[in-house]
C-alpha cells in the first residue's frame, strides 16, 4: 500500500467547515483544539476566493518526528504519522517544526500551561489497544481499524477533501481536473511565484 494522504480540491471547497465539525464530533476533540481547520484566501473577493481544509499532512519525511526530543512519533505501515501521548512532554518543538500548524496543545492549567500535543491521527487512533476506551480518550476514533477512512474526508459534502491512499486520490483528482479542464493551477510553483510569460504583479497588489 502506498501512503495515506489528504488532498483538498480548492475548486470544490465551499468553506462549510463540515470537515472540522466531523473531526470534532468523531474524535470528541476538546475545546480550543482544532485538528482540522479551513483556511480561506481572498475572502469575499468574487472569483478569487479559495478555501482549503488543512490538518496534519502525514508527511513522508515529517519534521515533527525529526525534532521531537523524546522520540514519541512513529509512522505506521500505511504512512500515518502518530505519537504516543504517554511519552509527549508538551514542549511544542513539533509545533514550531510543522509547516501546517498541525500540532495542537490543549490548555492544561492556568497561565497558558500546555498539555500534551494533540493532532490529526488520520482517524487511526494511537498506541493503545485498538477500539478501546483508552485509545478513544487519548487519540480519538480509530476508523482505519474499522475499515473506514477519516471522517472529515468521508463527510465532505462536495468531496473537495479526499483522504486515503495517495495514488488513488491523486487519480481521482487528476480525472476531475481533466473533466472540468481547470483547477490544478491553484497550486504549484507558477501560482506562487508567477509564470515566466506572466507580468509581475503591480506594486501594492494584494497577495
Amino acid at each position, binding site marked *: 500500500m502506498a501512503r495515506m494522504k489528504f488532498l483538498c480540491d480548492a475548486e470544490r471547497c465551499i468553506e462549510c467547515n463540515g470537515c472540522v465539525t466531523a473531526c470534532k464530533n468523531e474524535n470528541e476533540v476538546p475545546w480550543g483544539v482544532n485538528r482540522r481547520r479551513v483556511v480561506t484566501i481572498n475572502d469575499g473577493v468574487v472569483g478569487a476566493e479559495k478555501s482549503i481544509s488543512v490538518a496534519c499532512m502525514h508527511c513522508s519525511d515529517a519534521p515533527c*518526528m525529526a525534532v521531537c526530543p523524546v522520540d514519541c512519533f*512513529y509512522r505506521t505501515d500505511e504512512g500515518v504519522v502518530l505519537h504516543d501521548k504517554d511519552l509527549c512532554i508538551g514542549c511544542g518543538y513539533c509545533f514550531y517544526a510543522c509547516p501546517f500548524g498541525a500540532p495542537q496543545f490543549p490548555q492544561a492549567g492556568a497561565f497558558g500551561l500546555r498539555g500534551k500535543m494533540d493532532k490529526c491521527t488520520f482517524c487511526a487512533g494511537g498506541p493503545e489497544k*485498538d*477500539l478501546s476506551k483508552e485509545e478513544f480518550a487519548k487519540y480519538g476514533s480509530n476508523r482505519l481499524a474499522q*475499515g*473506514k477512512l477519516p471522517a472529515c474526508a468521508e463527510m465532505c459534502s462536495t468531496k473537495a477533501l479526499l483522504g*486515503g491512499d495517495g495514488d*488513488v*486520490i491523486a487519480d481521482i483528482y487528476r480525472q476531475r481536473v481533466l473533466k472540468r479542464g481547470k483547477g490544478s493551477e491553484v497550486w504549484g510553483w507558477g501560482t506562487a511565484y508567477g509564470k515566466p510569460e506572466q507580468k509581475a504583479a503591480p506594486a501594492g497588489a494584494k497577495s
Partner: protein
Amino acid sequence: MSPASRFILAAAALAVATGLSACGEREQVIVYKQGKYQGKPDTKPWENDPNASLYTTSKWNKGDQTSWEAAVKTRNLSQNEYNRVQ
C-alpha cells in the same frame, strides 16, 4: 622539460584537481538521523475483527493485510463520484 615549466604544469594540475573537487554531487536534502520510537507498540488495523464495529460496510479477513487494503481501497474509490454516478 625545464624546472619552471614542470612547476607550472604541477600547479595547473593541482588547480584542475581542486576545481573539479567542487563538482562532486552532494546530498541536497538534509538527512536527519531518525530517532528510534520510544513509545508503546501499536497494533495493525487489519489485525482487528471486521465485525468489531457496528456500522461499517468494509469486510476483510482478520489478520490479512491484503484483504484489508482491498476493503479500504474500495471505500477510497467510492469518493470518486464520476464512478459512482454514471
